[in-house]
């Protein structure tokens, strides 16, 4: 595929993530912080987010599987995940965390289990999409092209 086509693919792909609400404007903020002196900033932050989230989701699963659920332990984890997903623009993960957190406050174990699954689903979705996005970027760079900043235009 030619460079121009690859760049168009990347733009279209990125646009679809916004249209589907998977990413929000905070992701654009991160892209603005990337430049020649920090060419991998976005992928670095996102990688940190993946590492953080994997750990948190694991801890949450363990906490919710206990005989007696300690909601005082669960809440900070959800808060953390909500915060970091918000910081990278992972809108649907963040929104799922908000609902999850409400059920934690109500100490509704059944709903919490359901929403943990929901959060995980949204997380794996954004993880998958972002990994694809970074692959597209790498292909462009490997072909000698530059990543053009995404202009939402909507």
């Amino acid at each position, binding site marked *: 595929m030619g460079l121009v086509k690859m760049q168009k693919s990347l733009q279209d792909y990125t646009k679809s993530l916004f249209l589907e609400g998977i990413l929000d404007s*905070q992701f654009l*903020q*991160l892209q*603005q*912080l990337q*430049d020649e*002196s*920090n060419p991998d*900033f976005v992928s*670095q*932050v996102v990688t*940190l*987010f993946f*590492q*953080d989230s994997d750990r948190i989701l694991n801890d949450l699963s363990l906490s919710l599987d206990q005989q007696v659920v300690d909601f005082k332990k669960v809440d*900070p984890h959800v*808060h*953390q995940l*909500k*915060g*970091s997903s*918000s*910081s*990278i*623009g992972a809108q649907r993960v963040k929104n799922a965390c908000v609902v999850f957190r409400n059920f934690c406050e109500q100490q509704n174990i059944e709903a919490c289990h359901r929403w943990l699954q929901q959060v995980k689903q949204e997380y794996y979705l954004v993880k998958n999409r972002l990994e694809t996005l970074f692959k597209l970027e790498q292909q462009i760079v490997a072909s000698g092209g530059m990543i053009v900043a995404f202009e939402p235009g909507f």
Partner: protein
Amino acid sequence: MVVADLLSSFSPSPELHVLAVDDSFVDRKVIERLLRISACKVTTVESGTRALQYLGLDGDTGSSGLKDLKVNLIVTDYSMPGLTGYELLKKIKESSVFREIPVVIMSSENIQPRIEQCMTEGAEDFLLKPVKLADVKRLKELIMRSGEAEERKTTNPSPTRILQNDFDSSSSSTSSSSFHDGSSLDEDTQSSKRMKLEFTVQD
């Protein structure tokens, strides 16, 4: 002569040294970049306790090497395990040495009583997360402007490299040179690594 010295040493864009406190890896990375891209020197720590250690407010002398650069602004998350941002703010404002340093609180939650509590305790500003570049730029302008006001008021200009925590406890204003140190004059790009200061302490 003193005035001329002062003017020549005053860089057109003096760099602020910001201490950023946040328990989230992701947020630390983002705030660090936001500040660096806004031409600030940044030190990040992961807790209020570490922040106090860095400032030397915890009773220990701390790492003297790292304290050579005076802190001009503290930006801290509100919700942190251990010492909260609010508690950190209180400790800083209780300190005769550090109370003049502006402290900004960040939070993902827009809780009015919380905001009021922080502002009453002396916070400079309250930023809603996720923090954006525009927030940091606005903050920097605010701090720089109040720094320039201090600059004009001061009767004790000191154009040479500032020494650490050189405060006269009887004076309430910080030294006019506190917004830059001499060696940063040559540096005008935030991507320069020379003055990079990292105090990132991982768990």
